[in-house]
């Protein structure tokens, strides 16, 4: 492999994958090893630790519901699990798990539990939601999931480098949208897709959520954030399926990232994590915010 594994966008990432005949996960590993001087074992161990936190945070609220600090959410994952267990889900086994896990993590997050920001705390349910459901449905090993997490981090890094993953800067499309792109690429690699297909999946995921605003009630990472994690994860599943079918995307990923960032800059400040617009500015949203901040 070339001595430098650094890449600045999807185009340079894909040419590195082609040159070395590496999946995206291995190019990202190589980059990390080159830049930090750590061994493959060391960085895999760190990622395994992140995976174990993801597993715990996606599973715990299924049986032990917790109320959020602001009181707007809590108990959703258990309800989803209950319905699924009784065979009532209209989504089928895979998607119903995606929904339950991706909503479980934000529940843990909002109650000051331990999570992995991926790429942010607000969007922390998307990547584990999809990957852990895949793991169960397809009997995947932790090692396969760790590969997926490196692929997800490569996509997230490109977005962080060239745009933003902060809701305050570019809206929810930058948080849940980015997480969805990361999850879509990860799932595509794990399920046997080529690097190009991984990037296609990420492109589709980002474009599907373009324009999504960040409007949490009371400014807290609770509502509508938790629901949007489920949508981000479900979107990623759909986009991986599209990519794995060999469907190409018209717009390259790097242009989509730029488009997302430009859209983000054009989102009014009221809809960028300030709790002044959207759900937060509805009469009920305002009432809830008053209750939360004056309750003690």
């Amino acid at each position, binding site marked *: 492999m070339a001595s430098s594994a650094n890449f600045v966008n999807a185009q340079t990432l894909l040419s590195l994958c082609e040159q070395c005949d590496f999946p995206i996960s291995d190019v*990202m*590993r190589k*980059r*990390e090893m080159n*830049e*930090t001087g750590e061994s493959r074992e060391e*960085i895999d161990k*760190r*990622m395994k*630790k*992140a995976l174990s*936190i993801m597993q715990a945070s996606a599973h715990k609220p299924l049986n032990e519901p917790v109320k*959020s*600090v*602001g009181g707007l959410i809590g108990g959703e994952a258990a309800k989803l699990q209950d319905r699924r267990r009784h065979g009532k889900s209209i989504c089928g086994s895979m998607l119903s798990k995606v929904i339950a896990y991706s909503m479980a993590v934000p529940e*843990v*997050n*909002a*109650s*000051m*539990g*331990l*999570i*992995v*920001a*991926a*790429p*942010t*705390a*607000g969007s*922390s349910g998307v*990547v584990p939601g999809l990957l852990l459901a895949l793991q169960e449905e397809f009997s995947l090993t932790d090692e396969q999931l760790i590969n997926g*997490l*490196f692929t*997800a*981090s*490569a996509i*997230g*890094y490109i977005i*962080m*480098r060239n745009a933003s*993953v*902060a809701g*305050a*800067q570019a809206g929810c499309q930058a948080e849940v949208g980015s997480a969805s792109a*990361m999850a879509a690429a990860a799932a595509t690699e794990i399920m046997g897709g080529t690097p190009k297909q991984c990037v296609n999946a990420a492109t589709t995921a980002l474009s599907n959520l373009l324009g999504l605003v960040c409007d949490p009630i*009371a*400014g*807290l*990472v*609770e509502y509508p954030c938790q629901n949007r994690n489920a949508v981000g994860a479900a979107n990623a599943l759909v986009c991986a399926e599209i990519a794995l079918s060999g469907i190409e995307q018209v717009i390259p990923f790097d242009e989509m990232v730029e488009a997302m960032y430009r859209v983000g800059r054009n989102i009014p400040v009221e809809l960028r994590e300030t*709790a002044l617009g959207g759900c937060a500015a509805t009469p009920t949203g305002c009432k809830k915010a008053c209750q*939360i*901040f004056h309750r*003690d």
Partner: protein
Amino acid sequence: MAFISAFDVIGPNMVGPSSSHTAGAVSIALLTKKMISGKVKKVHFTLFGSFAKTYKGHGTDRALLGGIMGFNTDDLRIKDSFKIADREGIEYSFTADEKETEVHPNTVDIDIENEEGKKLKVRGESLGGGKVRIVRINDVKVEFSGEYSTLITMHDDKPGLVAHIAKCLSECNVNIAFMRLFRSEKGATAHTIVESDEKIPQKVLDDIYSNPCVHDIMLVEV
């Protein structure tokens, strides 16, 4: 451009709910704790901007107090910071300053005092995604992130001090990644901040301190 690691994307591992309002708050307070030696006796936090508006819902207060007690961003004890601080006999208080607007939206001032009566005042900013920077020490504007081993030397604003610090580091074979000098006004106390990729041995601190123009040294290891 600063290196963005795979673990900046899949990470930090953290107690929720917010990377900026919770994890970042822990990190600022933890850096502050590392800057003052000995046991913390008393701490006061002044919160600005979005920190001031939403700190209760985000657990920013518990996160700050946890950092002062040495907790990392992924320490589950953060949720119980108040109880633990009460048990440890640490005096703590919070003020929300919603009027000051000339600050970064997520800013906190930390006034801290240890059991020997040593006091320190630090201002930190939470930049998003868990990234932070310290921007003020005792009313002198500074800048460092805590991502490197950081050596802060407070000294007279006189010629030769920076050379003295550089010499002490080079004699112990410590490679300087970044070095900057800050001062509030000419002739006042100056702060030299050195950031290094490697650990800085105690001998460097002793050597630097041997110069009578040096008032104090703080070492913040990663």
